């Protein structure tokens, strides 16, 4: 199951909102994700598809794996990685701002 990217506002058309409680762990804080995942432990109204439970389990496992990997880093590694992540983000934000400006105002 690779389609873990459904957010509440991105449920497939026609699907009941409450059936798709799983979320993309990449877009959620771990705590918030666990709240969602915890709901899978009890029957969810209308959620009778085993695929949904499988997706929940996959998403939960993926989030746990990421947390384990993050915890295994030394403080120095974590700081270095965070610094690089910020640099990557800054590059994206610079492009995004310029792109939005150009969309409105032209070149």
């Amino acid at each position, binding site marked *: 199951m690779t389609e873990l990217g459904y957010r509440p506002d991105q449920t497939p058309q026609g699907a009941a909102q409450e059936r798709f409680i799983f979320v993309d762990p*990449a877009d959620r804080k771990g705590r918030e994700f666990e709240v969602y995942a915890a709901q899978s432990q009890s029957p969810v109204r209308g959620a009778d598809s085993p695929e949904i439970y499988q997706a929940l389990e996959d998403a939960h496992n993926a989030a746990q794996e990421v947390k384990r990997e993050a915890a295994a880093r030394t403080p120095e590694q974590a700081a270095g*990685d*965070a610094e690089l992540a910020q640099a990557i*983000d800054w*590059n994206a934000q610079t*492009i*995004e701002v310029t*792109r939005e400006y150009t*969309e409105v105002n*032209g070149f």
Partner: protein
Amino acid sequence: MSLWSKTIKLVTGVEPSTKVSVPRLRKVTRRDLIRMESKIGATVFGPVPANHRREFFCLDEHTWVWYEEWIDETTGARREMTTRYEVHPHGVLKVQDGQPYALVEGEELRNLAIATRMYREQVMRSVYRRDPVTGQKLSVSTGTI
């Protein structure tokens, strides 16, 4: 009436308008811009191998996408791989089709940082004609040096 206006009227028989008319260009869309950026992005990881098609672009302010498509030489089948890099406060998450989520670390993270920097610098200059550091418009002379 200036000499120039008189000359125009004499030649064309019509009094020249004082308003400058700027041709209206088609509005550039986000998709257009990403397509233009992606052409540059495809080169920041080095030359694209034969029979490969590559795209690398900034999707939004926290996401980068690398798409690679190629022909499998043994089977002749078309293959493709999409990698999404999502930037979070404490690291970068790599998401690939059919693969578990993974934090990007070490050499790969450094290479990604370099690639995004090259992307920003080249895209700002070549697509947006702006200084990659200040964001100011490049003058014609600056842009050609």
